[in-house]
């Protein structure tokens, strides 16, 4: 069984990434389940989804300290999810801050140097600087597939199944850009 927590902020494409991941696992003949939260979370709130695949998946939710991977599209959201990370789990995190409304309103502060703290305290962490890559690829909106690319090296899913899943679920005119993003993400953790 492989357990993956996907985390981010509403609007970052977390749920599409989950669907691509599930589809790629499904093409690879795994049983697969996912659970996500809609509604209020759409409006810029924290987004958390659980994806599990293996020979037979029961619960759609991943137990505490049982995630093999956490993929976070945002720094502070990564820290929020660390209780899920298993002993040998790996964290992939986009080294970027999305400032919450609570900080904009002056009611809270966004801590400095969360990236350094993660680097020092999480045994297996990949901090990815994706902003320049996304500019080079020519789309800011491909972060989700880029992060999947980074994760993909660690999963037992053949590359062609990833590409088929992207072609199946991403809008046709964005497929090429997203495949570039996937390949870039893959190169980061190769």
């Amino acid at each position: 069984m492989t357990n993956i927590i996907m985390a981010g902020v509403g609007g970052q494409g977390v749920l599409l990434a989950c669907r691509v991941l599930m589809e790629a696992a499904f093409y690879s003949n795994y049983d697969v389940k996912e659970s996500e939260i809609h509604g209020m979370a759409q409006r810029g709130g924290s987004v958390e989804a659980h994806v599990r695949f293996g020979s037979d998946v029961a619960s759609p939710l991943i137990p505490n300290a049982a995630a093999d991977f956490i993929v976070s599209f945002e720094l502070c959201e990564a820290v929020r999810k660390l209780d899920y990370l298993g002993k040998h789990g790996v964290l992939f995190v986009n080294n970027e801050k999305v400032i919450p409304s609570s900080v904009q309103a002056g009611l809270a502060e966004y801590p400095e140097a969360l990236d350094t703290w993660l680097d020092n305290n999480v045994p297996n962490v990949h901090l990815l600087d994706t902003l320049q890559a996304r500019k080079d690829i020519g789309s800011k909106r491909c972060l989700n597939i880029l992060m999947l690319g980074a994760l993909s090296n660690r999963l037992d899913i053949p590359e062609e199944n990833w590409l088929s899943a992207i072609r199946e679920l991403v809008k046709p005119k964005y497929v090429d850009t997203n495949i570039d993003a996937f390949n870039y993400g893959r190169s980061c953790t190769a």
Partner: protein
Amino acid sequence: MNKRIMMGNEAVARGTYEAGCHVAAGYPGTPSTEILEALSRNAPDVKSQWSPNEKVALEVAFGSALAGARALATMKHVGVNVAADPLFTFSYTGVNGGLVIISADDPGQWSSQNEQDNRNYARHAKVPMLEPSSPDEARRFVKQAFQLSEDYDRPVLVKVPTRIAHSRAIVAEEEVCTRELKRFQRDPQKYVMIPIHGRQRHIVIEEKQTELANVSDHTALNRVEWGDTKQGIVTDSVAYQYVKEVAPEASVLKLGMVWPLPRETIQDFAAGVDGLIVVEELDPFIENEIRAMGIPVAHGKDVIPNCGELTPDIVAQALNKPRAENHIPACPETLPPRPPRLCKGCPHAPIFTALKELDLNVIGDIGCYTLAALAPYNAMHTQACMGASVGMHFGMEKASPQMAENSVAVIGDSTFVHSGITPLIDIVYNQGTGTVIILDNRTTAMTGHQEHPATGVTLSGEATHALDIPKICEATGVQRVFTVDPFEEEDLKGLIQTEVETREPSIIVVNRPCLLK
């Protein structure tokens, strides 16, 4: 058999389609909304529609069933409250065709004002309830629900919680059936619920409950999975999956039909194990029923919380199973909260800025604009249920007349159509003077931009008559009806201030489409 990954709600839609359903109606509400959207997209033969509210949706579905169709009504758990009036009496009349009602419950209140447990409705309205534990079961159970409904002439409830409705999994696709309509036969003693008929029907439905209890004892919807007999776990819905996750070796009675409950099956199961533990979300529904049967229950709500959703960890703790330890040190930094917020450029924003500056009591309602209760606006002071703002605002004025001058009701367009019109009639009828602000962004935004009667577009995207909100307000008898654009109106504050001070009822329709639409 073809298999695909589907969301639970898409699987409910697929089961509905496979069952040969003719008509489906509902009102959007998380986590139920995607059912009708998927039906409209994938099953064009099913006549699917958004209704103005859940009561109307259920009445439309019931009418279709009486006309001999298989009909579906979809709603979130609190939507069943709105539809409860017809539900309880359709239980008496029976349905002729097939009538299935989806109750999409929200344990954990991810997107709801409460976390009521709608299994109680099945017992209260005396209608059968099925509870799938996964998306594929949801597809199959909906088909079985239609069959039960036709075979026993009962409406049938199917409950899906957030963790099934908004869960994705592999779902099989089976053949789509087509079904002839049954004939509608006039039968006033069955369909006209005057007291003399209703008393007779009550006897009939109690007999049906006995018959259905027997069905519950023999259906494969309820099954025992024997394992270690030291403890027997009775469970339902998604809780079953958590039990299988943390105690795969245990003996489990999995209940797929939770009303009526299978008494003999439970008795036999209890006799085969050393003690029963009931693992269920929210209320001790199954637990109390088992105790009422005179069957001892070793553990239930003494170890399983009755608030919030269950998780594998909560179930593991209750069953004394080992749990993995956290091994990463706690981050010493305080993380900033990230609540949802109104989008940048939201047309609701100028109104709440104005209301905040005017320091009025804001009697709010349900929609995106409820987020104005949070920072940075902090400009909503009550919110309860769909449509409540208008009547509550009037009630405050009745109790304390000056509250008409220091308060406003704020309600969205879809919510106003849902249940804001009748309380407006009350204000006029009983000589209120309050001001109601209708935030008309031409969509049901919070649930993901569904159409409604005032958008002029149907669920399937067809153009239709658009309800004219200012005109309907005028028709109630309100003389002072203003329509403003929140980005063009230079003196929003002045307008609101004048209207709250005016000693007659006023409506301010704030008209600007949602920028995400």
